[in-house]
């Protein structure tokens, strides 16, 4: 009897300190994640003079002036409008072409399917630096330079493969019997696809849309190369401000905080799919 209590008590005693180290590690890691973001927010609430003056850990006189500058100055807020315009165009375009293709990959065997699937992956992995110059020349020669559609099309390079892979990962989880039953019931393919199939993979479509949005939103090199004035994204406006002299740190930080907001808003809803999305639907 005594030995039983001992064996039961021993693991409990061993788990207790382990849980504590776990918590410490987690808290330290989250602090490491959050302190840089806190610093950005803190500086966005200060005037430039306060930032460059005394060094403080929190804003002494918090002010929203920096945000006011961005939201009232056309050259700033148009950056957000431009970014959102091409990101939305890209997301819609990517999903529209990726949905039928992902269905084909998940359901049918056809000539060259594996090669095509692999080739899509290589485009997801392609370094934007390789494509920067050819894109610049291609879109200049067809008169699309400095338009939203040029950036949206350029970003399909990595977003269409991403959407196809993620959607395929979700679609293979839907049993094929559903398709067959629907065809027996007399559904045509488009009607079946829109009415029955798409609701079934709604979360997959949401995740794919989220990742298309994110990857287009965070990309700088291609969007900067392909735009000059009219379609200039916020990211590129920010880097140009950095290189200029007499830099206003407060406004720069406020611009940075505003670019984080779209991701931060939806992240809660996709929290369980982040790994799946980054792993191209394969986790």
């Amino acid at each position, binding site marked *: 009897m005594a030995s039983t209590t001992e064996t039961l008590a021993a*693991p409990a005693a061993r788990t207790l300190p382990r849980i504590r180290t776990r918590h410490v590690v987690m808290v330290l890691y989250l602090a*490491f994640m959050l302190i840089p973001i806190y610093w950005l927010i803190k500086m966005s609430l200060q005037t430039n003079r306060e930032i460059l003056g005394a060094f403080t850990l929190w804003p002494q006189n918090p002010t929203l002036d920096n945000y006011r500058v961005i939201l009232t100055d056309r050259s700033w807020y148009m950056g957000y409008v431009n970014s959102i315009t091409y990101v939305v165009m890209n997301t819609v375009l990517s999903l529209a072409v990726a949905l039928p293709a992902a269905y084909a990959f998940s359901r*049918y065997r*056809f000539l060259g399917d594996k090669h095509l699937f692999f080739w899509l*992956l290589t485009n997801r992995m392609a*370094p934007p630096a390789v494509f920067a110059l*050819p894109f610049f020349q291609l879109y200049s020669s067809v008169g699309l330079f400095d338009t939203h559609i040029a950036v949206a099309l350029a970003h399909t390079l990595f977003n269409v493969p991403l959407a196809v892979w993620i959607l395929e990962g979700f679609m293979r989880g839907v049993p094929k019997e559903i398709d067959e039953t629907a065809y027996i019931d007399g559904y045509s393919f488009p009607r079946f696809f829109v009415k029955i199939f798409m609701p079934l993979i709604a979360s997959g479509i949401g995740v794919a849309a989220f990742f298309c949005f994110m990857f287009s939103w965070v990309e700088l090199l291609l969007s900067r190369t392909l735009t000059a004035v009219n379609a200039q994204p916020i990211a590129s406006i920010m880097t140009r401000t950095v290189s200029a002299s007499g830099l206003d740190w407060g406004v720069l930080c406020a611009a940075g905080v505003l670019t984080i907001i779209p991701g931060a808003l939806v992240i809660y809803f996709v*929290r369980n799919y982040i790994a799946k999305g*980054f792993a191209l639907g*394969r986790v």
Partner: protein
Amino acid sequence: MEKTPNQKAWFLVLPVLILVAFSAVVPLMTVVNYAVQDSFGNNVFFWEGLGWFEQVLTSDRVHAALGRQLAFSAIILAIQIPLGVAIALCMPKRGVWASVCLVLMALPLLIPWNVVGTIWQILGRTDIGLVGHTLAGLGIDWNYARNPVHAWITVVVMDVWHWTSLVALLAYAGLQSIPQAYYQAARIDQASRWKVFRYIELPKMQGVLLIAILLRFMDSFMIYTEPFVVTGGGPGSATSFLSIDLVRMALGQFDLGPAAAFSIMYFLVILLVSWVFYTVMTNLDRAEGK
């Protein structure tokens, strides 16, 4: 799932094919074109053959950039993979705190890359940045814009901050798929914590960890924006990784021939890694199907 042979499925993939051909094949052909020709302007080109490839392959500048790139990717993997696994093991398994951790950890992944650069550019400054100020307070002459070692540390810490969560989230997803019965069996066998990790958790995470390694390798191999914003590739060319060097060559100096040859070789490396990735993925799918 058993797939039906159906050649008409080609019609469903045709839009993707056309779109990606336009945004990938056409530009790549331009690159190939430049790689084998030379020009004195006026759009007059003449055949150059493999000259540019030879020049790039023997160029010290490219060798140096490649060396820096490989060193960077190696350091990144050596830090992020073990750290990510450790964090995943420490994460709460379920409940509110699991969600809180997931959301907070994923935040850096969703920040635009240039803002990531801006954040660390500011943090490292001795006058206004928390990290730089603290280090200066400790008596270290911290200057990432002048000291190559400091520049490297900044860029590496920045990447660890930016991407470790991805490894952790992938490893966490792998851990979540382990049935509780395995742990119970281990407890009955009185397995130590290390043995549970070595014989239960690690084998179960193998697939996702391979994906994590490949993704991190690929993304660190083509890193551009973050170091570009923080250091601009400097001091000198201490942090000019392959992409930064390539863009400088192609868009800064308009050395189209060497830049194109460089691009093609870059792309071949990517192709090779993608193939490994693809094989891993399909093997994983097959193992899951069993």
